């Protein structure tokens, strides 16, 4: 039976593989029996050795966990951020003057448009965030210094982000310079006043 399958095959069998043809057929499909390619064996062996080694190292030999690696990396970044915060959290009048004299208001308008506009609306007339053009203030007290403080640190209860985490030092100063131009402009259609009235 088997010999006949081999001899009578209608398949396109190459001369160098005749001897590998197996003696069974399914709906005329036949199979050769080539050995496993050696590169395939070797590569599979390597992946298995890697798999075992990796698992053993990280699970049984106190290899660092993902959280360990995270904590280490993250604490470095936090230290850098902290350094920046310490150096810049206080408003620097001189630096502010330097920024304003160097086209700070114009540059600030761009910063404002990209970051503040969604909440404070055009020309600071307020929307989600408070109106910046009236004489009422929630946290800041109308001066660049107090505005800087709110922009830098944000205000969690009012939904104001801490922009020090997002903007560069210069961008913050520029935004403050631009926002300061809104003061007491009482733009038409502005949001109702919020907070306390500040006279100056």
């Amino acid at each position, binding site marked *: 039976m088997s010999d006949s399958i081999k001899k009578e095959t209608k398949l*396109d069998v190459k001369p160098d593989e005749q001897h590998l043809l197996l003696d069974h057929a399914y709906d005329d*499909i036949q199979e050769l*029996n080539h*050995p496993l390619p050696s590169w395939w064996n070797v*590569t599979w062996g390597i992946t298995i050795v890697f798999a075992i080694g990796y698992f053993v190292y990280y699970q049984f030999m106190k290899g660092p966990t993902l959280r360990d690696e995270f904590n280490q*990396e993250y604490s470095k970044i936090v230290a*850098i951020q902290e350094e920046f915060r310490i150096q810049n959290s206080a408003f620097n009048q001189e630096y502010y003057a330097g920024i304003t004299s160097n086209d700070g208001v114009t540059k600030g308008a761009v910063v404002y448009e990209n970051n503040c506009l969604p909440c404070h609306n055009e020309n600071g007339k307020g929307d989600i965030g408070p109106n910046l053009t009236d004489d009422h203030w929630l946290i800041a007290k109308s001066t660049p210094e107090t505005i800087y403080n709110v922009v830098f640190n944000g205000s969690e209860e009012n939904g104001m982000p801490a922009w020090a985490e997002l903007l560069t030092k210069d961008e913050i100063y520029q935004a403050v310079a631009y926002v300061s131009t809104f003061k007491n402009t009482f733009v038409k259609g502005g949001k109702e006043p919020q907070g306390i009235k500040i006279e100056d």
Partner: protein
Amino acid sequence: MSSPNGSVPASNRRLETFTYDDQIVKWFVIATVIWGAVALLLGVTVAFQLADWRVNLGLPWTTFGRLRPLHTNAAIFAFCGNAIFAGIYYSHQRLLKARLFNDILSRVHFWGWQFIIILAAITLPLGMTTGKEYAELEWPIDILITLIWVVFAVNFFGTIVRRRERHIYVAIWFYIATIITVAVLHIVNSVELPVTLTKSYSLYSGVQDALVQWWYGHNAVAFFLTTPFLGLMYYFVPKAANRPVYSYRLSIIHFWSLVFIYIWAGPHHLLYTTLPEWAQTLGMVFSVALWMPSWGGMINGLMTLRGVWDKVRTEPGLRFMATSLTFYGMSTFEGPLLSIKSVNSIAHFTDWIPGHVHSGTIGWNYMLIAGILFYLVPKLWNTELYSKRLANIQFWLATVGLLFYVISMLVAGITQSLMWRAMDDAGRLIYPNFIETVIKIVPMYWVRAIGGTLVLISFILMIINLYRTAKKGKSGPEAVYEAYALDDYSLEAGAAAHRKLEGWPMIFAVLSLIAILVGSAIEIVPSLMSDNYITKISAIKPYSPLELYGRDVYIREGCYLCHSQTVRAIPHEVIRYGKASEAAEFVYDHPFQWGSKRTGPDLARVGKKYPHMWHYKHFYDPREVTAGSIMPNYKWLFDKKIDYSTLPKKMAVMKQLGVPYTDDEVVTSVVNAKAQAVEIAGELAQSGVPQKIVEMEVVALISYMQRLGVDYTSMPEEEAPVAEADVK
């Protein structure tokens, strides 16, 4: 070598005549091309929706979140499903020399499956979904799927019982593994408690649900898109090439290793999450070890074409098959690569993943189906292929379209991922606004959409080609075949162990069941058994009734398809979104909503980040608060009233699932929810929002948004890391 049973007189052998049921194969072929076109059209639609949000059309049932599940379900279960059934029913009969077990079962199988697809096409756009990817269909349909699958299995194994060929060929090994494993996956992942006819909650929650879901999700790829197609490959490639299969030995090794190893790989979808790390590591290392077993199939396919490459150039069917095997090899190399933790930290949540998936689904599944159909349709309709030239045009369109897709998504994925992690020397993100990273890759979304369109056009050309082929076909008298009934003649004395096993299909089936249960059990059982699987945190409380309702709106609109809800413990991610997620935060999440793709930002820490008004505007038109946003508008949430009627039932079902609501909370849920809605509407009113908003669904959704992550982040610092081992 003569028969070992030469002692049995040949006159005792019973020669039988029989026919094959090819009618059912024709039906499945027709269903394949129809649903294939639908699936691709849906794919192209959602691709354009990502490139331009206006393509969402502003209607609930045409919006991305509802059409995307329809696309994936149609592609996997309708297109590939029907193709599998066509191919299996054709080859199974011939490989066993037996007509399908029962003609009625075959027809119940066919119409039942088409009915399921139509139910999916109706319910998914209506927002009826479980919120679990590729398993979105609701519980009555899940039951129907189970029943039809059983019909298929009975028909399949019944045919095996009546076979006239003692040994089962490698194609059938793969079919067996498919039928058994898909049943196990579907049933285990779909355990859910019904709320109404169209709504249920997953039995599992949080980390456990994520684990079960991705064990299912990954193995849907393995056992619905890979093993059945490898089986088909083993039948149709040697047939079309008229060549013997390269290596029987390789078939054995790669079949068993593939089936055994594949099932472990699911957790590579959950790297860096709060899944216990040993499970993540298992998912990764088994994925790496899966590379060569996968390639075993590619080698056996491509090497079968040895010496006939000239035919690959001239025969469209063979050309599609060879290309599909090449793409199979590429994506099964890419898969293990992507499962390595450090690579995954870059690629996960980005467009690289849909790129990878489509090199499998278009490159492997579609191309192989095309190859099979070019073989099958002329055979079934007893004629020649209508046009080789048309098939060649189809081939180039599909290949170029696929390359557009894969390359654009690779570029988009890596670009966006690098932008997400870019930091300056003050430890600040260079692109803190997520939208910047989206706008950057929108051009790639256009390239992908165009690539997808080319693939769709190629498919339509195939339909024309096959239609014309069938039309000129002639139905002669039904072919009658002859074979001996199964008798002792086919017993082989001294056969090798595996050869013997091939003669015992039912034992073979049991062994493949065991092979897939080992990995499943080791990974999943601990999460079901152990109270210490996750460290509980007492500050994490269940959702309020209104938040629960809002969560169901979130699920209904398919928000999880673009937004994740889990902050991985990776520095840039914590800086962008907030504290890394903890397993305990998700214990009341039936189902979990971690997502798998960040087309928009993560939402695990979005609670209280913005005022209610921000969300109000954002749902109405995201571009009002985020210029350049590609998110659709959700305007219907502003005039769709909250349906409070099912809320007590929802709470009661959650309670049954183990969420610690008191009976009192269940009873008062509606009053409680209305009070919370009034609170939110009151705050919105300060910004001039009309009071009638209090009744609308958007308020519920806002309440859910504002709750996300809040329990954990507002918890006093000293409570945070305390493990409460015996919280009940």
